[in-house]
């Protein structure tokens, strides 16, 4: 605890000279802080301006500029981000709903920092594990990996069904509030079972060769570094960010709204779905937007997992090359000032503009939401 320290009233302070000295010092410090602060902020904001200036000669030059080279990269960037969000958004929003409504307070105060730590995992580590461990594994066990998409929700629902048939005493031992924790071994068990049984299923349904079957049936070519793995790895990287913002939005909804609904006989899920979610909707939207911004700009994961072939295909089983990965690969070799170099700067500018716009949108929406909560809270 810090007490406000009164300025020491020494004799020198009492004289006009001392007073003038102190005031002068104050003015000087204020000027310094102002100059430094404005300088730093301008330097930070100069990034966009600098990139734009570097790019301008591209549009002024008379030479043919291969702008169309960028289109597969933009496609790849958006494809990677889409697959990442397809995986991350349901998981992150689901986790946020669970932890804001159902989870016990004590567990919640532990889970939130844990997921924050998950956000701090460096992309290069996630990329390494996904690219060199997961991708070869999935290549060998494609059927098992795909079966998890079905097995996971089914086994969770099974857990719910089994739980509701348990005697009340057992149910109290495994409360829904702690389900986030005790479902982990249950999930792990079923993942193991699914992976163990998948060769047998593959033999039964697809003649033991799912990849051949996919190829002949749908014309899907399988490459080891593909959008599925990118989506999973990058989804893993953006889940914590989306979760944290969505959780804040959901738990920021004024309590009396939900209490009113529950008093009228709604279950917790009904309250969440009909009352809390609509109120927090903009917050969830901005959380997803910020997640999208991160997914678009993530470099190392895409670089290490996507295979970096500039394809324009929709297939989840093929790779892509993203803007960020192209910059990381090609820029160190490009000579300053030439067209290729400036084209890569254009790619960086595109990334900058996109993420800046998306983040600004999210921030404005969040600002509005905060005002709304204040009004709702104040109206009671």
């Amino acid at each position, binding site marked *: 605890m810090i007490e406000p320290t*009164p300025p020491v009233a020494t004799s020198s302070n009492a004289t006009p000279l001392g007073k003038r000295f102190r005031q002068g010092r104050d003015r000087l410090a204020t000027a310094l802080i102002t100059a430094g602060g404005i300088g730093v902020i301008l330097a930070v904001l100069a990034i966009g301006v600098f990139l734009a200036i570097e790019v301008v000669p591209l549009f002024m030059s008379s030479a043919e500029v291969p702008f169309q080279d960028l289109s597969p990269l933009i496609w790849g960037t958006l494809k990677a981000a889409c697959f990442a969000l397809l995986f991350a958004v349901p998981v992150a929003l689901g986790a946020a709903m669970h932890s804001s409504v159902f989870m016990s307070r004590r567990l919640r105060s532990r889970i939130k920092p844990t997921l924050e730590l998950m956000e701090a995992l460096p992309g290069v*580590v996630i990329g390494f*594990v996904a690219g060199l461990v997961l991708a070869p594994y999935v290549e060998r066990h494609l059927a098992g990996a795909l079966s998890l998409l079905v097995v996971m929700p089914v086994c969770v629902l099974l857990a*719910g069904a089994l739980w509701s048939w348990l005697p009340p005493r057992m149910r109290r031992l495994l409360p829904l509030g702690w389900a986030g924790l005790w479902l982990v071994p249950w*999930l792990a068990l079923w993942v193991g079972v699914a992976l163990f049984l998948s060769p047998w299923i593959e033999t039964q349904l697809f003649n033991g060769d799912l990849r051949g079957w996919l190829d002949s049936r749908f014309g899907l070519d399988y490459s080891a570094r593909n959008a599925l793995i990118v989506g999973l790895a990058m989804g893993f990287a953006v889940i914590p960010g989306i979760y944290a913002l969505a959780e804040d939005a959901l738990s920021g909804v004024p309590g009396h709204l939900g209490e009113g609904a529950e008093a009228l006989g709604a279950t917790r899920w009904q309250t969440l779905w009909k009352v809390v979610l609509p109120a927090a909707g903009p917050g969830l939207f901005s959380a997803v937007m910020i997640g999208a911004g991160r997914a*678009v700009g993530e*470099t190392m994961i895409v670089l290490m997992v996507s295979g970096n072939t500039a394809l324009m295909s929709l297939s989840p089983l093929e790779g892509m090359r993203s803007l960020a990965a192209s910059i990381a690969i090609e820029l160190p070799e490009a000579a300053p000032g030439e067209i290729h170099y400036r084209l890569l700067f254009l790619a960086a500018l595109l990334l900058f503009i996109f*993420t800046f716009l998306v983040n600004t949108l999210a921030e404005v929406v969040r600002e509005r939401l905060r005002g709304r909560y204040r009004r709702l809270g104040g109206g009671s």
Partner: protein
Amino acid sequence: MKGLTAPRWFAGRARLPRGEGPWPWLVAGSVALSLLMLLALVLLLAVRGLGHFWPSPVALVSLEDGSQLAGVKVREERRFDGAGSEWLLRTANRDLEGGIWQWVAVDAIESVSHPQDLVVMSRTRWGDFIGRLVALEDASGNQQEQAAWNAFEARLAEIQALRDERDRLRGDVVLPLVRRLERGLDSEARERLAAANARIRGLQRQMIGETLILESADGQRLAQPIEQVLRAWRPNAMSLPDKLGAWSRGVWRFLSEGPRAANTGGGVWPAIFGTVLMVLLMSVLVTPFGVLAGIYLNEVAHQGRLTRVVRIAVRNLAGVPSIVYGVFGLGVFVHGIGGTLDTWFFSDQLPSPTFGTGGLLWASLTLALLTLPVVIVATEEGLARVPEHQREGALALGATRLEMLARVVLPMTVPAMLTGVILAVARAAGEVAPLMLVGVAKLAPQVPVDGDFPFLHLDRKFMHLGYHIFDVAFHGGDVQAAMPLVYATALLLVLVILVLNLTAIFLRHHLKMRHVALPRH
């Protein structure tokens, strides 16, 4: 009621009699899934990363066709054609076999044993050797069996001592003398250099002498000069304490040595050093500027529409991809400022650039810019948390604004600033993409700090843990052989970042506790 139809329908059909239908379980499942993935990743890194240093047992595999091979079983995998499974063995002996991996079909294996006399040797050439020690030959004769092993172990310790002495001489005596000679003629230095070189040659001569007769599992013999052997151990004969000792020595070597064999072996000391130094420089750069900007935004600037816009913009810059900062650093720092510095001060060395290429300084500056928003936002949040009446009280007692800030407000926000800096450091330690553009190197055996003026070489390229992972895993020749090392490096990086983040969380918690006691107006 559109949103509710699905759960109700489902609940009716599936006869979930009590509770709230299936949806709460699905959302609970997504928490569990996130935790499961995190757990799986951390466990994988920990087990593989730490397991690399464990002296794993060497199996002697006898095949049905009568041949034998010795190796460390790495994993078992189902064959692509579905006919049984295979073992992947690391059989080493690149000089005899041409490769170090062998796949063995499980069906073809007749028996597996772990004889105690199998030796694993780490050598300076050709990588590891796995097999048996037949004899130790020196000038006086040759020794066999256990006597050979005992004599070999003793001699190996001697050679290691000689090697340490030689490296010490090279680093502490020869290198400074060579630098002195580079600066000008110096007869005394020349004499001392000659003496040191003679001494090194003497040490080198003492190392050679014996030859090991080795035999691989399939009976090929090999004469191995003893000075090329770095370490030797018999994993099957080691007891648990022995193995623990070997494990901890392995961990220590990993942390303290430089890389060998094109980064696929040895340790990561230069990468640790580079990462830490770069991050330290970055935090020295980012802290004053970030704090200054935060104070300006929250305390000095007129709180109007413009300040709000600037605040949102700064916050958004935290979401701009790191590679964009890398591009900015390359364009402005390396080619812009660095190029200009070169033409002004280092024109005698052009066209080879001094500062006009990626280096430690530019990397730190780029990362400082990248993490500025984090520090600014944290400082601002800390300042906003200080109750207004504290400021008013100070001003009412006659303090000027500077005194109010310096003696009342800033001391209360120190933990918040510290949290910001630590979060910035944690973020910077894990960033690799911008570094690839502004100064990281595959291999920079000379760390950027040494005894040579000006001691800290800001223009040098440096190694980085994160880039080391990327480089070894994706540009190395034999990825399979380098994998354990990559796991260990990844684990180390994650641990460093984890510790930093935990510190930040702890500080923030401490900060919250402290402000709970303060009444808000």
